[in-house]
């Protein structure tokens, strides 16, 4: 962190002679950069939507717009690692719901980037909760077909406007355990074989692409689109996002990592605390909903609110999310607070909604912390950002302040002065 502050200081000095009209300086702020120690009474310089410097006693560039934050707390915009934002408007209204993955014809090839609706009201709600980036995941469609994979995820910015897509194809989803059985074979015993069979096919496809092109190939279970989607997974360029809850299912996912040299992220992971050391050693991250603490199924018998804390203390990289994939994405900040009250060290709390999810999905070059060169995605808070009584006062994405007027808030304003 000291290094960052020093670098920030240095570049700010250079800026004194270079400042342009589109340079903004946010002063008098308590900045929690999301990766490193907080800067008390610090400043942040933003130019062309990027962070130029963050630090204490940063010299003010000449001609820059100065915004006095009056001692408020600034954090990076939060990143929600598991959402349906942009894929659904009303879950029970089929026509608005694009969360479901494919069919036996198309599985890993499903690509959510084409379904994104930037006008979704849920995006506004998430932004009001300080969320500026989100990973949008396809769910796996259940049915009699053998589908196995859910499809390709994308990352979005919760920016108001049409251009929400940030990166397409940031991972491929796979469900193990009970959900996997519902989409793969008739049991875990069949499902895990189908997964391996698919990954073997992809390896073969990668090796003998020319033969595939001229039809000299044994029949494959999955389509060309599915195989293409899985190639970057086997090249370790993007993670396989594996939904698993039971400890033994999580270990099956670890086995896949070893056998196929994959990079994976675990979703759910209610019993991950039981295999925390194994996950830490294999550098496997876990997306955690801390409030999932009930044995809702027999694969969550070990569900506990202590999960996040136990994992973080064991050195596992965790990303904390809200209580659903739509309306309650904004609740991730309360979940961080509740996990902190049950063992998650406060020093690691902010990372779970900033730099950790950014690293899990390879987005950490542009988002996840307030350091030089990254997108100026940040939130000004009225107090501790994990407290419900605190509010996001302003939300910036790429240096541009975003409107905080969702349809819900418009209704509240309309009816605050009127009622029947």
């Amino acid at each position, binding site marked *: 962190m000291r290094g960052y502050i020093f670098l920030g200081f240095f570049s700010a000095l250079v800026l004194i002679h270079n400042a342009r009209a589109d340079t903004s300086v946010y002063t008098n702020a308590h900045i929690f950069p999301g990766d490193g120690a907080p800067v008390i009474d610090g400043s942040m310089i933003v130019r062309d939507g990027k962070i130029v410097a963050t630090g204490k006693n940063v010299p003010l560039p000449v001609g820059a717009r100065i915004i006095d934050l009056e001692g408020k707390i600034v954090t990076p915009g939060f990143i929600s690692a598991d959402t349906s934002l942009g894929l659904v408007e*009303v*879950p*029970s*209204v089929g026509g608005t719901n694009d969360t479901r993955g494919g069919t036996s014809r198309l599985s890993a090839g499903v690509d959510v980037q084409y379904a994104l609706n930037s006008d979704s*009201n*849920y995006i506004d709600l998430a932004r009001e909760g300080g969320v500026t980036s989100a990973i949008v995941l396809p769910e796996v469609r259940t049915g009699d077909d053998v589908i196995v994979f859910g499809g390709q995820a994308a990352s979005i910015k919760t920016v108001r406007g049409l251009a929400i897509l940030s990166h397409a194809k940031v991972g491929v989803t796979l469900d193990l355990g009970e959900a996997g059985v519902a989409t793969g074979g008739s049991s875990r015993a069949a499902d895990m074989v189908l997964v391996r069979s698919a990954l073997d096919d992809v390896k073969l496809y990668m090796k003998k692409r020319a033969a595939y092109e001229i039809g000299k190939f044994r029949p494959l279970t999955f389509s060309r689109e599915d195989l293409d989607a899985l190639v970057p997974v086997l090249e370790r360029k993007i993670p396989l996002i594996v939904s698993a809850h039971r*400890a033994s299912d999580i270990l099956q996912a670890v086995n896949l990592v070893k056998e196929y040299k994959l990079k994976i992220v675990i979703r759910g992971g209610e*019993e991950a*605390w*039981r295999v925390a050391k194994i996950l830490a050693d294999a550098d496997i991250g876990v997306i955690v909903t801390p*409030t*999932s*603490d*009930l*044995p*809702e*199924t*027999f694969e*969550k*018998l*070990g569900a*506990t609110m*202590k999960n996040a804390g*136990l994992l973080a203390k064991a050195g596992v990289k965790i990303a904390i999310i809200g*209580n659903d994939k*739509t*309306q*309650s994405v*904004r*609740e991730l900040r*309360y979940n961080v*607070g*509740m996990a*902190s*009250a*049950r063992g998650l060290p406060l020093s690691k709390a902010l990372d779970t909604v900033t730099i950790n999810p950014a690293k899990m999905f390879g987005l950490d070059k542009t988002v996840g912390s307030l350091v030089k060169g990254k997108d100026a995605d940040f939130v000004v808070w009225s107090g501790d950002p*994990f*407290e*419900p*009584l*605190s*509010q996001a006062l302003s939300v910036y994405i790429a240096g541009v302040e975003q409107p905080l007027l969702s349809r*819900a*808030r418009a*209704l*509240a*304003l309309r*009816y*605050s002065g009127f*009622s*029947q």
Partner: protein
Amino acid sequence: MIYRFRKMKSVMYLSCFSMLFFLGNSSASTVSLSNPYPSTYNPGDNDPTAIIGATIFDGNGHRIEGGTILIEHGKIKEIGSNIAVPSGVKIIDATGRWITPGVIDSHSHIGVYPAPAVRGQVDVNENVEPNTSQVWAEHSIWPEDPSFDRAREGGVTTLLILPGSANLFGGRGVVVKNVPSVTEQGMKFPGAPYSLKMACGENPKGRYGAKGRSPATRMGNVAGYRKAWIEALEYNKKWKISREKHENGQSAEAFKRDLALETEAGVLNGDILVQNHCYRSDEMAVMIDVAKEFGYHITAFHHAVEAYKIRKLLAQEGICVATWSGRGGFKMEAYDAIEENAALLHQAGICVAIHSDSPVLSQRLNIESAVALAAGRRIGINISEEDAVSWFTSNPAKILGISDKTGSLVPGKSADVVIWSADPFSVYAVAEDVFIDGSLKYSRNDKKYQHVSDFDLGQHAEAP
């Protein structure tokens, strides 16, 4: 408006008493509203105790700094800032901590939609016909549901366990004390009135319309309620005639009980409360007219995400609202949910409760209330924390019909008390000690007071 509500409640209690009086004189062959499934609840050890030094929210809008609560025989004996602690009383020093009344969840399916939620033991919706007033939630409750333990860790001392919302009339709900018990009767809240669960909107019309039978529309829903109430009125009339003949020594045909109509008649007579699942404001207004047509009172609308649109009407009618702050959007009738709902209702003088409808949310009704409080402040409604505590204590007690027994920390009421590690509106607050009728039922720092349900016991994955 809360006054008006209280007045109506006292009228209901009067009618309740007169009914009981009458029943005492009636023979078993006439309709009986007495309780054939009595509570066996036993409060357990409750030594005289003084809790000193805490910041107390009493649930009635007061905040006492460095206060003392004296507990004797399971009841609050005294509460205040200058109270002499008698000798021989167990003293708990809660300096630096916070106290509220026990949390009351006014809408729960714990035990009837349990964890694990597997087919063998999900018993929440008797969804085979749109009117199942004859079923009682207490006959579905599985007391070993681990969700009861988790809720207690979240400070929940009392819950209203309701049937689901698939039907127009879902059946009777029951109030339970959140104590470990092998039987449901051992949890049953002594003296609490029953509730009838009714449901508006998408659930009943969707469930039965999909089967090609009524109700398939909202107008079908309303026709269904009216048909049932007409029959209940008729049933009541026949029963009264039979009773009068019996009392006058005249011969009367044996009166055959009908369990569904008996529950509905209980509503018409004011003995049984109505808990009405209803999302949209226009539908709530229709339900109010239905209630007037047949002469019953709706105790509370549940979920009621659009209640903020009809604040005047709800205040005028003295109807409470049990709602969320954050949930909404998942179906058309939840599309206009706003976080400001509770604060707007509270400002209009309406008794509002933050409820769960979820065994996970039940564990943090204090935090859900904080979200609702913050939303109100965002639009300039400055409700104090001591007032907002009523959303998860005294107001749900009113909805459950037990506000004379619990829900606020005043002398004579049950010593249902939570000691919190921090301000209960803080996300970092955890319940440290939970007392039910003065008996310690959960302690964060003492394994002896951390009940593990039979289901959780001995599982390989027991958390450290």
